[in-house]
């Protein structure tokens, strides 16, 4: 018998209420993601891929359907339990990096540990180790606007890793970066997936980036139109 999947989505629906009436974004989406997978999600703008990611990341709640993370029904959880999931199980990487501009890199990376109620010395030690691993150890005291975009994204990945997550959700992580830097970032994701077994789900609209993944899911108009190997995607 197969172990329960890390993520099980069944008949997920999401619609936004607007003044002009409800606008459906996701229609009846079902998907399983196993522990250790590397999934790329593609699709045109407005296809619902970002909404889907936000629901995966417990930032948004679906209108209908069921979402199980590690075998637990997310729909039944209160806001504190969702916060705990975002802290311990999920690591987020955003297109716009989303670092706190007034805090130095060390503090930014240590922030999830603060919310995990971890003591100051351990917090800073782990933050420094993570920064060193991503090659930014000497910038620990710098502010985000003093380093390049690629470096900022590495800090954001270090922050996502601080809570030792099982799942990293990356929403267009290379969208603001040049191709060389994008490659570096994708190499980091590949390594995390291969060496540490961290499940990675990333949204991108660049086919080159999707090639790093092992599985491709394509959204169109709120439906999954493709789910399979990355090489078939070109078709």
């Amino acid at each position, binding site marked *: 018998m197969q172990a329960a999947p890390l993520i099980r989505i069944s008949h997920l629906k999401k619609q936004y209420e607007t003044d002009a009436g409800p606008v459906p974004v996701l229609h009846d989406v079902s998907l399983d993601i196993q522990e250790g997978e590397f999934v790329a999600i593609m699709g045109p703008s407005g296809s619902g891929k970002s909404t889907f990611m*936000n629901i995966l*990341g*417990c*930032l*948004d709640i679906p209108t209908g359907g069921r979402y199980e993370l590690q075998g637990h029904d997310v729909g039944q959880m209160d*806001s*504190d339990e969702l*916060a*705990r999931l*975002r*802290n*311990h199980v999920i690591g*987020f990487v*955003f297109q716009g990096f*989303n*670092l*706190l501009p*007034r*805090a130095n890199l060390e503090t930014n990376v240590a*922030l*999830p540990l*603060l*919310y*995990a*109620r971890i*003591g*100051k010395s351990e917090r800073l030690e782990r933050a420094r180790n993570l920064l060193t691993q991503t090659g930014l150890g000497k910038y620990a005291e710098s502010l985000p606007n003093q380093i390049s975009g690629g470096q900022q994204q590495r800090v954001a990945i270090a*922050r*996502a890793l601080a*809570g030792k997550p099982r799942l990293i959700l990356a929403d267009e992580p290379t969208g603001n970066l040049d191709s060389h830097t994008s490659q570096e970032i994708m190499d980091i994701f590949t390594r995390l997936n291969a060496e540490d077994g961290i499940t990675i789900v990333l949204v991108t609209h660049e086919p080159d980036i999707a090639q790093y993944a092992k599985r491709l899911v394509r959204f169109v108009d709120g439906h999954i139109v493709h789910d399979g190997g990355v090489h078939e995607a070109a078709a």
Partner: protein
Amino acid sequence: MMIGVMLGEAWHAMGANRMRTFLTMLGMVIGVGAVILMMAIGQGVQYSVNQSIASMGSNLFLVVSGSTTSGGVRMGGGAAPTLTLSDAEAIAELPNIAAAAPVASGTAQVINGPNNWSTGISGVTPDYLEVANWELADGYWMADSDVRSATRVAVLGNTVAQNLFGDENPVGKTIRIKQSPFIVIGVLAPKGQALDGRDQDDTVLVPVRTAQRQLLGQQFQNAVRHIMVQAVSAEAMPQAERDMNDLLRQRHRIRAGADDDFTVRNMTAMANTAAETAKLMSLLLGAIASISLVVGGVGIMNIMLVSVTERTREIGIRMAIGARKRDILTQFLLEAISISIAGCTIGVALGVGGALLVNHLTQTPIVITFASIALGFAVATAVGVFFGYYPAHQAARLRPIEALRYQ
């Protein structure tokens, strides 16, 4: 641990927009400063009233002649000299009375060599010293024999002694009152102002019979202006008052239904009223000042709401990496309280400084108590919590995705 880090962040956030933080704090500074200053002045007034009351003697009645009807004309208190020395003696015999001190008073010019001074002369008996709560600074007090033989001895109040003798010791010296020589046998310890602001030390005390016969030239022998009566205890005062009324009506042969020709005033009750009034005034000043504290609090709430809106995205990021609602709430609440307490600290300093300045410029007594400062801090914290809660709650209830999308 969490609190320490969040205080650091609050400090950081306050420093990020110094001008705005300063202006927000200013509301608290003015509010707390006003409360401290007003309470200092109010309690100062209370203090001086209580000092006057303490100098007055306890469980005291003042019996004055008056309230007579003469040919249809009702006369005020003290207008007709109906009280006598024997009334005082009779009152002193009553069971609930500790002492009765008759006072015959008038004004006269007092002369020592080239110095002269116009002052109030009171003819009193030996009991007066205790009943009126005087103490001797120097010399000795008059005896029963001085009253009986109407000797020409005088005890000077501090103001009179200063004006006639300066730094010289008046005891044993001779002064002249209305051309008669009097030997100064003692000087009273200073007492300060009475409740009505009159200088109690501006007085000369002589034996009552001496005053009646030689100084005041009264039309009725033995008449006294008023009698100070001390009851044995506060509880005995109501009974003592009834007894005195009965006794004096009987002695003055007032028929049932006719008006009294005297008035008994409960001085202790009047003093308590004065103390209550001072307390009320103190309270009122504090209450008015507190309004500015509330206004300051609204200022904090306003700025915190702006701050929450400005930092919506930051709140979203924090939530995305695991901040709970409570963490966000604590963070913004601490920021509001920090502003409030920082403002309060400056306000206390300004309030205390202002109170000292008022004292220096106007000689108004001020009292700054630890309690009023502690109260200032407590109220400031409460204001911070009360007015910081709503914006903090607004921040904490944001949905993570909406906060993150906010531009």
